[in-house]
């Protein structure tokens, strides 16, 4: 086995030093009845060349050559080559969590820079080093809100990503939380309905732009939550934040989201990173790693994991979360991508999404389709009626090489005829014309 160095001579010498006669003897503490008495029944070992071929064959069974208008939380944005180059640096790729800061200044400084980028995007004071994804950070935020407010009701808008809502509902019983959903009206959420539901609530979670791609009246939703002393929590798309206002600037207590659109390949759903940022009032209640600045014994600036008494390895059953492994490498990818874009690039990225999505709306309505929420402003995604079952419409478009969108009937039965169409900066006018042709 080429990953192992041990030779027969090594083995003999080592067993002698240990004072046992065989490798089997090393396992003598395992009761006989619990020893596995046969060879593992797993597929045979492959050499590297065979492995490459096997995985190429598996990869070839996936269909990735259809023009992608599928979004619904994960988006086909471009990932720069520099991101890959940085992530393949072995010193970063193959390091563990930076428990020993003198060995880990590289990753610690990178996380500090990432935290800064997330705070800048969201208008918040503090960010953790990442959560698992855009769904679990919502559950984390509920836990923060419960303990910060002493309340046990969470309000979530129905126009929030269905998977986010499902994860929050799955975590809720353990947290002792009740989840209340506020329905959308015409694709957006009515702040008055939120105001009503927010009474006695720990938090109000809404998504901006929402799952339908629609721009919510986010400042009003936040105000409605604040009036009830419930924490407004915005679930946001990082690449929208060059053109859309930062949640911290319209009164939100926390901002969370799925980071994939900034720097991560779609990779069939992961690994990606969830981001979680908050006002400084909540810093001691945040889950996960936080990196802080300090100085070394010579007075030079350096970085460490800080406020660790929040965490499970110290506070154990009273910890703010059980998280330990997070998504640092993917968050680093996000930092690299955002650093390449800069403020101007991020703004242009948002504007290109806006412009292409508008072109797509016009092309589809021009081809005779109807928008589901024609009155609403959107960002890079919108819902369109296909005139037939959404999955059927999708199948017909795919036959023409276009993956036209996400059938909304999967989550919203009353929208059975609708597709959610996402348009990133990677799409071209020609591809959008093909979409219109494929759906008409």
């Amino acid at each position, binding site marked *: 086995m080429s990953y192992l160095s041990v030779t027969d001579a090594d083995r003999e010498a080592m067993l002698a030093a240990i004072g046992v006669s065989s490798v089997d003897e090393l396992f003598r503490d395992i009761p006989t009845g619990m020893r596995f008495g046969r060879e593992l029944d797993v597929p045979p070992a492959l050499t590297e060349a065979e492995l490459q071929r096997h995985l190429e064959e598996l990869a070839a069974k996936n269909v990735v050559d259809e023009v992608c208008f599928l979004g619904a939380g994960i988006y086909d944005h471009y990932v720069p080559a520099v991101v890959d180059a940085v992530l393949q640096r072995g010193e970063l790729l193959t390091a563990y969590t930076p428990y020993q800061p003198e060995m880990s200044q590289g990753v610690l400084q990178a996380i500090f820079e990432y935290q800064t980028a997330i705070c800048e995007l969201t208008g918040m004071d503090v960010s953790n080093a990442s959560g698992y994804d855009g769904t679990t950070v919502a559950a984390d935020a509920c836990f923060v809100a419960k303990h910060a407010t002493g309340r046990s009701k969470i309000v979530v808008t129905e126009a929030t990503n269905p998977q986010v809502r499902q994860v929050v509902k799955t975590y809720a019983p353990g947290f002792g939380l009740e989840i209340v959903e506020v329905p959308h009206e015409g694709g957006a959420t009515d702040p008055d309905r939120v105001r009503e539901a927010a009474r006695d609530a720990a938090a109000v979670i809404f998504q901006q732009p929402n799952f339908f791609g629609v721009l919510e009246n986010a400042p009003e939703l936040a105000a409605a939550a604040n009036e009830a002393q419930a924490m407004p929590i915005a679930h946001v798309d990082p690449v929208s934040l060059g053109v859309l206002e930062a949640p911290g600037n319209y009164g939100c207590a926390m901002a969370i989201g799925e980071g994939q659109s900034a720097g991560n390949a779609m990779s069939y759903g992961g690994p990606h990173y969830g981001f979680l940022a908050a006002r400084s009032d909540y810093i001691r209640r945040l889950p996960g790693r936080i990196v802080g600045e300090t100085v070394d014994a010579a007075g030079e600036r350096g970085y460490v994991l800080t406020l*660790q008494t929040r965490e499970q390895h*110290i506070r154990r059953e*009273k910890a703010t979360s059980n998280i330990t492994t997070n998504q640092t490498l993917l968050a680093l990818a996000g930092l690299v991508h955002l650093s390449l874009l800069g403020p101007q690039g991020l703004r242009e990225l948002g504007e290109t999404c806006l412009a292409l999505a508008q072109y797509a709306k016009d092309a589809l309505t021009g081809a005779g389709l109807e928008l589901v929420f024609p009155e609403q402003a959107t960002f890079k995604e919108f819902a369109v009626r296909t005139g037939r079952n959404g999955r059927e419409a999708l199948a017909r478009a795919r036959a023409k090489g276009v993956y036209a969108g996400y059938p909304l009937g999967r989550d919203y039965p009353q929208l059975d005829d609708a597709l959610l169409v996402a348009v990133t900066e990677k799409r071209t006018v020609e591809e959008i014309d093909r979409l219109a042709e494929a759906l008409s």
Partner: protein
Amino acid sequence: MAASESYPDDLLYHPEHDWARIDGDEAVLGVTWYAQDALGELVHYEPPSVGATVSKDASYGEVESVKAVSDLISPLTGEVLEVNEKVVDAPETVNEDPYGDGWLIRIRMTSQDERDQLLALADYRKVLDDEA
């Protein structure tokens, strides 16, 4: 600058390394030299609110060092009259002066009987000897 080891004999002690200085129906509470030494330099004090009730043998707050967190166990039952804001701002005050400037809360006692259940210095020293 950390204080050197000492245990004043005018205080009453709780086996969880907390002390009380009783004056009439009021008491000032803090942690002993042993407790602050075991924790190391304190970086955070999470106090109760003024007006809150604290109960004998129950936690009324927390102190933290970089790598440890400890519940503050109340030796007495009562109502919180005052929190030492100096320790909130500069938690290391507890390390520097655990029995003076490093006090934690002042309470009005609701039971005078409880003082008899606390340890005099000689008995607290036995607790310390057992832990060593």
